[in-house]
C-alpha cells in the first residue's frame, strides 16, 4: 500500500511533508548530486539578506553531545546574486522553494519581500526573525511579541495577500505561544518551529570561547524535545495554524513525533551535515512509520498526540 504523503500549508500544496531546513541545504544544488531534490517536498533556502554578507569569524562550529553549535552569521551573496544564480537554478529544477529572508530592520525584511514575492520560483517566504547569530540580541525580533509582529505585519502589508508567509520562531523565549499569537494576528500564514537555541562552548584547552562568534546556535537531536514541545504547545493553542516542524530530526520516527505534535510539514537540518541523503531517507522512513501506525495518509496523523 502506498501512503499518501501529500500535505498542505495554508494554500501551499506539497507532495511530501519533508523539506530542508534553512541554512542546512544552501540552495539545494549540492544536495542534488546526492539525491533528486525534486523528490522531497521542497527546499527552504539559506536565509538571504539584502547585501552580500561575510558571516562571522571562524571557528564557526563545534560538535556537542548529540548536536552542534554554529556561529556562521548568515554568510551569503546578497539578494541580487541569489536571484540570478540560486533562484534561477531552483526554478530550472522545478522544485518547490520556500525562500528564507533575514534583515537587520523591519524595512530590510520589507525590501527583500517586495523583491522576491512575485518571483515565479518562490512558493512562500520564511521570515527568519530568530537567527541567534547577530551581534545585538535586541535584533532577534522573535524574542518579543511586539517586534515579531511589527516585522511580520510590515511584510504582510508590503506583499499583499497573495504570498504565503511563515515566521520562523526561536524557543529562547518565556512563552512561544505568545509570539506565535502575535505573528498570526499580524499576517503570518504559519510558523516554522524552531530555530537554534542560543548556546556556548568553552575550549578545555584554552579556557576561552570555542566559537569565533563566542555564542552560537545549538542544533541537532539534543534540541528535539524542545522543538516537539514548541510544536505541541502552538498546535494546542491554534489547532488549524500551519506549522513546519524542525529541530534534530534524523529519522522517520523523529519526523513522526513532529507530525503527531501538530506539524503539517517537517524540515531536515543538521542531520544533512552528517548524512547528505537524510531528507530522502527520512521521507521514506516516515512513510513506513505511517504504515506501521495504520494511517492511509499523512494528513490523518497530523496532531494525533492531542486529545
Amino acid at each position, binding site marked *: 500500500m502506498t501512503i499518501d504523503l501529500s500535505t498542505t500549508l495554508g494554500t501551499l500544496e506539497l507532495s511530501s511533508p519533508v523539506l530542508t531546513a534553512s*541554512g*542546512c*541545504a*544552501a540552495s539545494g544544488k*549540492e*544536495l542534488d*548530486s*546526492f539525491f533528486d531534490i525534486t523528490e522531497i517536498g521542497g527546499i527552504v533556502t*539559506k536565509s538571504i539578506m539584502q*547585501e*552580500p*554578507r*561575510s*558571516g*562571522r*569569524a*571562524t*571557528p*564557526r*562550529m*563545534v*560538535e556537542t*553531545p*548529540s*548536536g*552542534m553549535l*554554529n556561529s*556562521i552569521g548568515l*554568510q*551569503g551573496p*546578497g539578494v541580487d546574486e541569489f536571484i540570478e544564480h540560486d533562484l534561477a537554478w531552483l526554478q530550472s529544477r522545478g522544485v518547490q522553494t520556500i525562500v528564507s529572508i533575514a534583515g537587520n530592520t523591519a524595512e530590510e525584511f520589507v525590501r527583500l519581500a517586495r523583491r522576491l514575492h512575485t518571483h515565479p520560483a518562490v512558493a512562500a517566504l520564511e521570515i527568519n526573525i530568530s537567527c541567534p547569530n547577530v*551581534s545585538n540580541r535586541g535584533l532577534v525580533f522573535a524574542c518579543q511579541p511586539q517586534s515579531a509582529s511589527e516585522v511580520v505585519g510590515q511584510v504582510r502589508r508590503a506583499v499583499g495577500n497573495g504570498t504565503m508567509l511563515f515566521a520562523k520562531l526561536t524557543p529562547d523565549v518565556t512563552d512561544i505561544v505568545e509570539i506565535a499569537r502575535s505573528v498570526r494576528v499580524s499576517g503570518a500564514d504559519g510558523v516554522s518551529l524552531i530555530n537554534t537555541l542560543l548556546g556556548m562552548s568553552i575550549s578545555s584547552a584554552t579556557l576561552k570561547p570555542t566559537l*569565533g562568534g563566542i555564542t552560537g546556535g545549538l542544533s*541537532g*537531536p539534543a534540541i528535539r524535545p524542545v522543538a516537539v514541545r514548541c510544536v505541541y504547545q502552538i498546535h494546542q493553542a491554534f489547532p488549524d495554524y500551519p506549522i513546519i516542524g524542525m529541530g534534530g530530526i*534524523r529519522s522517520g520516527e523523529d519526523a513522526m513525533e513532529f507530525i503527531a505534535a501538530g506539524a503539517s510539514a517537517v524540515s531536515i537540518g*543538521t*542531520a*544533512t*551535515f*552528517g*548524512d*547528505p*541523503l537524510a531528507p530522502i531517507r527520512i521521507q521514506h522512513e516516515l512513510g513506513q512509520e505511517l504504515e506501521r501506525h495504520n494511517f492511509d495518509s499523512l494528513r490523518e496523523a497530523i496532531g494525533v498526540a492531542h486529545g
Partner: protein
Amino acid sequence: MPEQHLATILANKREGAYHRLVLSAPSIAKDVKVGQFATISVGGQNSGMILRRAFSIHNITTDSAQGQMMELIVSPHGPGTKWIAEQSPGKTLDVVSPLGKGFPLPKSPVNCLLIGGGYGSAPLVFLAKELKKRNCSVDFILGASTSEKLFDTMNAKRESRFYEVYTQDGSHGRRGMVTDSLADMIQKANTNVIYTCGPMPMLQAITEIATFHGVITQCAVEESMACGIGVCMTCVLPVRDESGVTRMVRSCLEGPVFRGDYVRFDEVGSIPEDCIGAPRQSQ
C-alpha cells in the same frame, strides 16, 4: 561527483602515531583526484557524535582479489577519530567521497617540492607519482614534532631527488622545522612549485618564503567542517581571487587546496575589513 557509500574495512594498521585504513572503494576510485578527501560517520547509527570526520585520500590502489581500494590516514586524537581507529577489518563504514578539488597538476614538466607536516604528508606520495607521470621532478621535505608523527618517510624518500626530514625534538632527521632550509632547497632544486599540506602556521611560513623566491605554493588547508559537501558554511577562510577581491570561501568545495599567496593567512580566524560582505565599521 561525490557519493555516499558503505565501504568495507580491508585493513587497519597502526603506523607510528597514525592508522592506515584500507577501504573497499569500487565505485568511486576511478574518479579520485589527488588532494581530494573523504568523510566518515562515526560512532554508529545512534551516536551522539553527529558529524563526519574528514581525511585526505592517501592512495588509490587495485588488487586482483579486492578490486579498487582507498587508503586514508587517521590520527586518533578525539573520540570520533579514536572510534574509527578501533574498527576492525570486515566492518563497514559510511563514507562520502571524493570531496573537494584536489591539487592542480602542472601541464609542463616543472620542478616540484612537496612539503608535509605531520600526517599532512598523507596525500603527498600519491601526488609525487602523479607529478612524475607528467615528467616533473619531485623533491620532499617532511617534518613533525617527533619521529612517531612523521608519516610515509620511506616512500617519500624513494620518490625524491632531494629529500630532507625534520623533527622538532631531533628524534628523526634534523632537529628543526621544515622551513629551516627551505630557501636553500628552493635554490638547490630550482623549485618552480611547492605542494604542501599541514598545519596553518606551517603553510603560512612556507608561502612567505616561497613567494619571496618567486615560487608558487599550492596549500591543502585543514579547517574544521560540519558537512564537507558545501552546505553548512563553517569551513570558510579569507581567500583572494585573481582580481584581488577577498571572499570567505568554503575549504570543502573551493578547496581544500588553495594557492598560498591567495590565502590571507594573517586573517584566518577573522573577517578582513575589505572582504566582500564584511561587517561595516559602524556595527
